[in-house]
């Protein structure tokens, strides 16, 4: 079955062609571009109450509450005014838009970026496709943030609750970002042991997190996972 929220492609680069679409884009800044399909029929079966999803999100990413929106999306979500989107297009646009917020928030949280700008562009055809551009300080963090945001939204859109794993993944990503030598570590088992010991987390839990970080493009543990 086709995924209802699917990252089709990820690009990394300058994208001068979209520079003028956000006056806050810094000249020459690198960006991550996420091509995203939000398939409405599948979404309709899940939880599309964006307000309830937002309330779960701010537990994980409290700074989302500080966001202000010309479209009043964030204000409406905070005040509970935003009900289930009445229109199909608005529904999938909200989802893509929230994904942009998550990517911005994650990158700011992990890398400590002083500023970060982005745009969400909805296609004319197909109407369910979006290009999400977000300024990116670190390519790996940008890719990780996109994967993480999609994984998180898929979970919340299917009425699942936030698990401890998401908190721990952000914590670990931040930890690895500040420890470049650890990022180059390719031996899964010793790395898991080290982190387990340092944080007092169960090794099996750490192993699952490290595998997720690999899946999300943050760590290169392919060799050790294959052995």
């Amino acid at each position, binding site marked *: 079955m086709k995924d209802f929220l*699917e*990252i*089709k*492609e*990820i*690009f*990394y*680069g*300058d*994208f*001068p*062609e*979209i*520079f003028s*679409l*956000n006056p*806050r884009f810094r000249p020459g800044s690198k960006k991550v*571009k996420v091509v995203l399909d939000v398939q409405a029929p599948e979404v309709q079966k899940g939880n599309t109450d964006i307000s309830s999803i937002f309330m779960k999100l701010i537990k994980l990413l409290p700074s989302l509450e*500080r*966001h*202000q*929106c*010309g*479209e009043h*999306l*964030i204000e409406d979500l905070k005040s509970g005014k935003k009900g289930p989107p009445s229109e199909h297009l608005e529904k999938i*646009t909200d989802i893509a*838009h929230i994904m*942009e*917020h998550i990517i*911005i*928030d994650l990158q*700011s949280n992990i890398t400590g*970026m*002083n*500023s*970060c*700008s*982005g*745009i*969400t*562009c*909805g*296609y*004319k*055809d197909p*109407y369910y496709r979006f*290009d999400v551009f977000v300024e990116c300080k670190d*390519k*790996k963090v940008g*890719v990780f943030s996109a994967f993480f945001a999609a994984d998180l939204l898929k979970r919340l859109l299917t009425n699942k609750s936030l698990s401890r794993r998401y908190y721990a993944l952000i914590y670990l990503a931040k930890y690895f970002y500040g420890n470049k030598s650890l990022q180059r570590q390719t031996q899964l088992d010793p790395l898991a042991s080290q982190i387990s010991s340092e944080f007092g987390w169960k090794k099996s839990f750490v192993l699952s997190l490290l595998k997720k970080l690999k899946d999300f*493009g943050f760590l*290169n543990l*392919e060799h050790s996972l294959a052995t």
Partner: protein
Amino acid sequence: MNDKLSFKNPDEVKTKIEKLISFQEEEDPLLKAKDENPDNPGLLSKYARVLCCSFDKNEAIEHQTIKLP
């Protein structure tokens, strides 16, 4: 130059994630495409709507919608 990561099948994902992580630069077809260059006003014609936002540590994130022709 932009790096491209495709997600059509698991093997391709694996290969391209490795390539992405290795920081090898690739030509981005978006920039190579004949009808897509910064001076071409039709470049963004594929979009129906654009939402933009910015974050600054000293400010809140702002959003606005840019109307496309």
